[in-house]
């Protein structure tokens, strides 16, 4: 049909219960944010799977690429002094 629209794409993130982090659930098509939120509720939370929802235009998300995974995350991997095991404590002392 001429002029027909499928609406823009939104990514949906749901919080399964209070205190838990949001996680990606999937996507929906919607004309605006309010409609995206309602669609996300109907599609991804029919059985109480969430207590909160975020919707974000898919075009607003920037992500790292799998091919870059090695070099991109490298700066973190060569800093063992960020981990507690790097530091020595006298034996027999309970640190935590």
């Amino acid at each position, binding site marked *: *049909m001429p*002029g*027909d*629209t*499928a*609406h823009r*794409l939104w*990514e949906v993130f749901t919080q399964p219960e209070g205190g838990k982090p949001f996680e990606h659930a*999937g*996507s*929906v*098509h*919607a*004309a*605006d944010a309010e*409609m995206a939120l309602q669609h996300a509720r*109907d*599609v991804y939370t*029919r*059985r109480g799977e969430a207590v909160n929802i975020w919707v974000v235009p*898919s*075009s607003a*998300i*920037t*992500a*790292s*690429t*799998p*091919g*870059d995974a090695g070099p991109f995350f490298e700066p973190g991997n060569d800093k063992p002094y960020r981990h507690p095991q790097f530091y020595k404590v006298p034996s027999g002392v309970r640190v935590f």
Partner: protein
Amino acid sequence: MPYQVHEPKGPTPRDERAGASEDPRRLAEFEARIARGETIEPKDWMPERYRRQLIRMMSQHAHSEVVGMLPEGNWITRAPTLRRKMGLLAKVQDEAGHGLYIYCGTETLGVDRNDLIQQLLAGTAKYSSIFNYPTLTWADIGAIGWLVDGAAIVNQTMLAKASYGPYARAMVRICKEENFHKRQGYEIMATLAAGTPEQRAMAQDALNRWWWPSLMMFGPHDKDSPNSDELLRWKVKQKTNDELRQRFVNLTVAQAKAINLTIPDPDLRYNEATKNWEFGEIDWDEFWRVVKGDGPCNRERLAARRKAHDDGAWVRAAAEAYAARHASRAGAAA
């Protein structure tokens, strides 16, 4: 390079030879990842054939969920009790949701949902042939939940381990919901089978009509299934059509016995050695006829989908106009 989460790649190339010239080093790396049981994510390198097989398989699956609403929707207004009506409404709503989960997963492969829907409406896309059979009586709603959703669970439980992450995740979500579908169907059948002689006959008649099409849902024999080898090699599927069909029959025979219904197959017998229920030959002429568009309801189903899509066009247009007006007002106020 950063990338957009959903990056349209344009229409899928039709060239059957595409993928023949994949970089052998990358292909070997990809197959090694599959062999190690790793999950492939949307932006990982994948052979073009893998991407196209997934688009084909996932979009057919999504279309099946959507068209699957039609035979059942036929009985919502005539459900015998409020309890049955609520259950059926919820089930049909789930099927719409399942379609959306899988379309969403398919879009991660760089296709646009609207293109896929247009292919369905144009009659060039396939969907499960089972939905081209009519629902003649209320017992058919029982038979569909029990057998059709039962067969879907067998298939989808395997697909929940598929090598492509978005497909596997959609299947995990769907499998959790299908159990409700199957149980509501089986409860309908069990109730009718324990009812008056007329109700019993209705249940048996529904089983007689839906049994063989349910077995056809698993697709052609392995030797006649052109896509199976590739899908198994790349672990999109972990079991063959015939293995899944056998598993479904083994599970279902006892369920039919428990409610005193007879599976319409004189060749059905238990093999002590293999522990399998062996069954008669499927009418493959009927299968191919329905797949190719000549089933009892193919035309009716597509006409109903087209009408629903066209009737909804003004709603989509109104939603866009509303969004545009609010956006421009917000812009003016800022």
